[in-house]
């Protein structure tokens, strides 16, 4: 420490430059947003290596609305809440459903979209969608998702297999290791069924929206102490709904309004 301060005293210009270099990122980016990047069409990495998707566009629109400059922080899904709590980002905008369990750890804005969850299976899948019907069937979900809790709670006889990302769930659906997968309906439609890899697969069973598991729609997560940021973001969501920016983004991805599911 002494060494540093002497060096600073001796070369004030270098010291000032050093301070500026460290201060710069904080000044230029007042909001860091945790996103996932492996959940098409909401969040993915493009061929050019850029983050893109509905979540990313919404994040940019909210930042523009609030007049904040934002930095996207790509984060592993199952570490995303701790990453927020440790202060490595300030908000989670990653298609995270607002659930009671998560609300014990973090705060949420109002929802920014709401969709149902469905099973996807190979065409010709004829097992009955009940706990008994799925007994012994391999059902694949993303680890730490609401879908894991849903299958554990409602289909305990199914043999549940957990994956780090939703992309890997799709990979093993096509390889045939998964008999069925449970995930968000829209993510499955656009991220899998509408792609070449999804040929020969279809939704099976109903679309589920059970508040106890699936929550009240997807919201933006913030630390519990950040009530001001939460309220600013909530207001910004309503503002872009109002201004038509939301609709513009929505229509670029979906043929219907995802706000109400």
């Amino acid at each position, binding site marked *: 420490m002494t060494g540093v301060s002497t060096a600073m005293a001796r070369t004030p210009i270098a010291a000032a430059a050093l301070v500026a270099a460290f201060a710069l990122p904080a000044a230029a980016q007042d909001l860091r947003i945790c996103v996932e990047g492996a959940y098409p069409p909401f969040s993915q990495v493009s061929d050019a290596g850029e983050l893109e998707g509905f979540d990313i566009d919404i994040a940019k629109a909210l930042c523009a609305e609030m007049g904040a400059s934002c930095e996207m922080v790509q984060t592993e899904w199952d*570490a995303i809440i*701790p990453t927020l709590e440790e202060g490595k980002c300030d908000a989670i905008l990653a298609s995270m459903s607002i659930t009671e*369990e998560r609300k014990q*750890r973090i705060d949420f804005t109002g929802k920014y979209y709401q969709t149902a969850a469905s099973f996807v299976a190979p065409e010709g899948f004829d097992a009955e969608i009940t706990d008994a019907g799925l007994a012994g069937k391999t059902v694949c979900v993303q*680890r730490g998702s609401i879908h894991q809790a849903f299958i554990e709670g409602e289909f305990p006889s199914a043999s549940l297999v*957990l994956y*780090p990302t939703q992309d890997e769930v799709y990979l093993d659906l096509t*390889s*045939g290791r998964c008999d069925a997968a449970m995930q968000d309906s829209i993510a499955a439609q656009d991220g899998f069924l509408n792609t070449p890899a999804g040929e020969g697969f279809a939704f099976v069973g109903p679309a589920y929206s059970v508040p106890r598991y699936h929550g009240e729609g997807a919201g933006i997560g913030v630390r519990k102490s950040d009530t001001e940021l939460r309220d600013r973001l909530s207001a910004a969501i309503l503002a872009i709904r109002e201004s038509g920016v939301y609709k513009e983004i929505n229509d670029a991805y979906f043929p219907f309004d995802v706000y109400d599911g």
Partner: protein
Amino acid sequence: MEAMCAAAAAASEAGSPWFFNPCLVLSEAPRWVEGVWITLHLTALALVFGFVLALPMACARAARAPVVDTLVRGYVYVFRGSPLLVQLFLIYYGLAQFGFVRDSLLWPVLRDAWWCCLIAFTLNSAAYQTEILRGALVATAKGDREACAALGMSPWLAARRVLIPGALRRALPQLGNETVFMLHGSAIASLVTIQDILGVGRLVNGRYYVVYEGLLTAAALYMALTWLVVWGVARLERRYLRHLAR
């Protein structure tokens, strides 16, 4: 126990992300036990099968057997030349992309994540063990070979009674090292859906939105297993390398 959990929940509610809540770990106790078993089972089988493959390959290398030497050299180069994780992904996700693999007789095996791990770990460990054993064989004292020849032993008999047992003794510390590496390397099984020690750790983290509870517990379990390996190897060394003991 219940009072402790209630206190832990309250502290966590108060908002400290640094707090370690042992109840989250204990609530998944049966999974941890199963995770330890899977890690041990996979590691042990990979090491044993790897050894079975490595011994003949090492002999071929040490004896400079024509053609076979070159083939083994290529095999070792390939499996030591890329990360174990890449090899596992290639076997698990890579092979599954080919229709002919999915239609083949091998698919019931390759379909199973556990077998994919065992195959990847075995092939990888065999490469490392081949080099360990080759080194130990090459280091055989010249006098040992001469004594075998003087007694009129056939090359096979000499290998069985003198050269290989001697090499195994010399290789013991390095084989112990390989055991520890394999034990820790096996943690990547959790990336292809296996609920090994790290897999359970990440399950706990994912379920309760925490970091330390799952990872620290996993680290502690790996350390305990490492200690067991080190202790076991030290015992073997005391027995088989007694002439080197001080």
